């Protein structure tokens, strides 16, 4: 971790504050042998098109269309059940929470945490099954993961879970979810509650990790200001000369991700 200002290195040929693999690849790209996996083994078929925009290379899905599904039993007609019902047809859905007129709370959003925890509980209450590669199994607490970008929010998520589930579901940051997977993931969108996103907020690495941990279904929970926030934002390319436009790229990727959910009718208002 570099704790001093890095502006002086931003335009250096080998910036010491950037990851070494990135610098080495940049310098020796023409000599490097690049091998790409053709498909994602983890993700359901329709999730790949949603996640692919986060990457600079193309790939497909190992799973064929309809080979995986989250099948919830009969439930009520509330928004949580509607969201779970959608997971029969598609692998990614979103649940939005109304944004208060005075603006959303910062970092620790109790309403959003409550919705995410209730969704997790509802998945188990409805005896939900995971259909994968011809086999079907009933989901247990260990098959459900929760993620939020801030530790304080993860603490809130854990606290909002019913007592019998607390500590039995993995709740963690995207950084610690890297390399892991679950049949069902419930995540708090990184821009939920962020009405004026910064370059840090718009960096899509965390959303990319959160949106690519599930083998069966993903439920994204967010405040409903998200679409307006992204529409209203005019990204400004303030990076140092020669550096990539991280803000512009992040904004474009966030918009694409959310627009696809919206246009596909996958957003349910809580």
């Amino acid at each position, binding site marked *: 971790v570099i704790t001093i200002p*890095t*502006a*002086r*290195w*931003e*335009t*250096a040929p080998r910036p010491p504050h950037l990851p070494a693999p990135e610098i080495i690849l940049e310098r020796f790209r023409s000599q490097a042998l690049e091998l790409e996996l053709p498909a994602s083994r983890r993700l359901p078929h329709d999730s790949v098109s949603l996640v692919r925009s986060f990457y600079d290379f193309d790939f497909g899905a190992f799973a064929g269309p309809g080979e995986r599904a989250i099948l919830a039993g009969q439930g009520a007609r509330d928004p949580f059940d509607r969201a779970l019902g959608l997971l029969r047809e598609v692998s990614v859905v979103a649940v939005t929470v109304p944004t208060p007129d005075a603006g959303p709370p910062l970092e620790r959003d109790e309403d959003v945490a409550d919705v995410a925890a209730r969704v997790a509980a509802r998945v188990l209450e409805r005896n939900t099954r995971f259909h994968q590669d011809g086999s079907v199994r009933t989901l247990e607490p260990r098959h459900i993961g929760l993620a939020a970008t801030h530790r304080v929010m993860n603490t809130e998520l854990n606290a909002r879970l019913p007592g019998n589930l607390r500590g039995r579901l993995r709740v963690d940051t995207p950084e610690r979810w890297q390399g892991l997977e679950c049949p069902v993931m419930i995540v708090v969108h990184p821009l939920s509650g962020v009405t004026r996103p910064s370059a840090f907020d718009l960096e899509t690495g965390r959303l990319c990790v959160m949106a690519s941990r599930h083998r069966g279904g993903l439920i994204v929970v967010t405040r409903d200001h998200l679409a307006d926030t992204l529409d*209203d934002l*005019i*990204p*400004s*390319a*303030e*990076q*140092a*000369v*020669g550096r*990539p*436009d991280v*803000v*512009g*790229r992040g*904004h*474009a990727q966030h918009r694409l991700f959310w627009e696809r959910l919206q246009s596909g009718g996958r957003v349910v208002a809580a």
Partner: protein
Amino acid sequence: VAGTRSSRDIQHQTVGSSPPRSRQVAQVMNERRDTRLRFEQWARNPSCEANRISAVHGVPMAEVVRREHGQPTMGQSPFALARGQMFEQVLLRNNGLRLRESLIQTGVLPASATGFQDFRLRQNRGPFRTLDEAREATSVFFKNMATATDPGQVPVVVAGAVVCVPGRAMLPEAILVIDVLAVTWVARRPVLVVGEVKTYPDRGGYTDGAELATARAQAGVYVHGLRQVLTELGVADRIAVADRGFLVLSRPGSNRPSIRANEDLRYQVERAARARSLQ
């Protein structure tokens, strides 16, 4: 914003105390036909009504402030304006020799690149009297470029190209004056690379981020506008416009250029397209 603008911008600055107010306003309104600055002004703060009135109707913000019974305090240093003009003259004199050499050194142009085409106005030491004349000549230039098959037939540096972006309800006449275009070739097809000239010094990682953002936004507007114009001229399949551009800054304490090549403009082009689609 002293010291940050090229003479392209200086055409549209709104200060001056000697002419009578009505004449001054008329002059400024005429100069503001170049809608690039208005467009960027609007895009910076689209929700502000005063800003919208100023940008959409081409009314200088100082005039808007007066109408709102305020006292405008804007202005530009004459020294900064002179510096901007001098920097551009140094770059473009002798048929753009210094700029061309710098573009070759930084790999924007190949070593064999030659030729210079000037569409600047007389007030900026160019050959054209009015924006309309320069725009007409620019259109003819693009049409000729579309029929060229050999890089030797096309000048590699183009200064002050003037294009008129197809109109919209909000900005019916969108005239853009593009600081510099570099012409490269890929697979026997000319590719226009947009360059933005700024007088402020290149201080590496310490160069002001907000200033760079404005320069990139302007370059993004040019790329978007050029693509629209080439489509309207029917030559979009023969001439490409690169997603990457270059910045021409000054070296600290001198009028020598510092070229920053390979600037990523993709998302600024998207931003320009979005902003225009909202009009």
